[in-house]
């Protein structure tokens, strides 16, 4: 189910696109239209999920770690993604203009250089682990530059990002590394915020700090949102790279098509990778007001989780949805969501994906997967490959 979920998602979508799951006590939504409807009706579905959690975390954690959960809740509850209107709008405005498509286009040459440097270094080796050698280093390097922190701090930041990723995982001992990551990023960010709050630059930390000056953020909110910016673009971009490359390895004709004209196909290929095997499988909300959806009544307080990976293959929207087609247009996938919480980093993510797949296609003729089975992190939210060894032939 974790490794190959699509057949199960399709069965559920066909049988009951808005389904009450008795075992977990939540709504599971798999149809494209109902997912869009939910995302566009933010007044009916609250994003303040963590604040409402009473009792111990799920999946269960080690008994001695249980007190750490309060720290996780405090970190999570103050982040932009957990806000509703009216606060959400004012907070989003502080960083929204930083991430516009036009603003991010200005960063494309930097992203291309970072991709070229990394790929030129990897190519002569003839093999790599896509997760650790390519997917993990790149997004951290880029977000560090956008935040305006020194390049020497990259390893520190990557370590912190990896720790904070335990937020979306299920291991019983996850709270210890997670809270270490939370404390680490807050303490790491603090001096930068203090330095820039009266003396802003054009970086992302300055934009967040300006929010405090404007009375929109508390200091704690500036610090935890710095943490959010670090990890929100980390695992998601890693997954785009890994899941996309897996799709290309399994569909060699599409890889050849990209290789024949990388500049032409980089954009639509990235969108198809996002649709076909999305970095984020599912997201959740809490029902805030009673709502009718596909003949079901959703009541306040009930949890609701929608499966992006299922909606992205809804045949009522996508022709031949299980086919990986890098020229697919239009491609209105839901991998960045929809509505007021639509992914803040979308323009950056697109540029990263386009530059990565373009850069790979220009250099690598064929990848061979060096494992019989790809395993995924035990997460309902993220579609994250654990390890992905590949090889290619290098002319002597």
């Amino acid at each position, binding site marked *: 189910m974790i490794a190959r979920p699509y057949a199960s998602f399709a069965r559920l979508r066909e049988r009951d696109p808005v389904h009450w799951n008795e075992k977990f006590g939540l709504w599971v939504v798999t149809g494209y239209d109902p997912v869009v409807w939910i995302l566009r009706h933010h007044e009916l579905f609250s994003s303040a999920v963590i604040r409402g959690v009473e009792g111990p975390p799920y999946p269960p954690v080690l008994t001695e770690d249980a007190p750490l959960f309060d720290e996780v809740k405090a970190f999570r509850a103050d982040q932009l993604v957990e806000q509703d209107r009216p606060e959400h709008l004012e907070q989003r*405005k502080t960083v929204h203009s930083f991430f*516009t498509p*036009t603003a991010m286009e200005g960063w494309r040459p930097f992203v291309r250089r970072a991709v070229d440097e990394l790929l030129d270094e990897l190519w002569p080796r003839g093999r790599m682990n896509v997760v650790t050698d390519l997917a993990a280093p790149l997004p951290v390097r880029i977000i560090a530059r956008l935040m305006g922190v020194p390049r020497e701090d990259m390893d520190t930041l990557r370590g912190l990002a990896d720790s904070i990723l335990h937020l979306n995982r299920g291991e019983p001992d996850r709270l210890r590394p997670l809270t270490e990551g939370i404390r680490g990023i807050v303490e790491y960010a603090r001096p930068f915020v203090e330095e820039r709050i009266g003396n802003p630059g054009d970086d992302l930390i300055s934009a967040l700090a300006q929010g405090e000056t404007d009375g929109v953020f508390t200091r704690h909110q500036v610090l935890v949102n710095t943490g959010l910016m670090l990890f929100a673009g980390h695992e998601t971009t890693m997954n785009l790279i890994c899941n996309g490359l897996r799709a290309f390895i399994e569909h060699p004709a599409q890889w050849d098509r990209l290789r024949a004209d990388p500049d032409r196909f980089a954009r639509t290929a990235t969108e198809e990778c996002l649709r076909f095997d999305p970095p984020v499988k599912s997201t959740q909300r809490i029902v805030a007001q009673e709502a009718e959806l596909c003949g079901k009544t959703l009541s306040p307080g009930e949890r609701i989780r929608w499966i992006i990976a299922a909606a992205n293959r809804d045949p009522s929207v996508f022709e031949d949805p299980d086919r990986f087609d890098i020229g697919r247009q239009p491609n209105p996938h839901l991998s960045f969501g929809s*509505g*007021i919480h*639509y992914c803040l980093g979308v323009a950056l993510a697109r540029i990263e994906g386009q530059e990565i797949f373009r850069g790979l296609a220009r250099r690598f003729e064929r990848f061979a997967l060096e494992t019989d089975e790809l395993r995924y992190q035990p997460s309902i939210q993220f579609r994250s490959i654990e390890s992905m060894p590949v090889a290619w032939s290098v002319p002597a």
Partner: protein
Amino acid sequence: MVKVEVDHGLCVGNAMCVATAPGVFVHNEHRQSTVVDAGGDPAALVLEAAANCPVSAIRVTDAETGRTLFPPEPGATS
């Protein structure tokens, strides 16, 4: 006077345009942005709304000359 168009094949209902230039943009029944009055806010605000669209769904042209004001033409300086 400017002419403003929203591409509903792209619009995701992020609503930043409605927040930026509420005299020009409102949401329709699908919660997608639609233009009620291209002159409902100053042109500078309309251009800000267009630039803030995360999916570049808004096109602004000069109604008299037909010149594209947003998105910027390739090679143009802002």
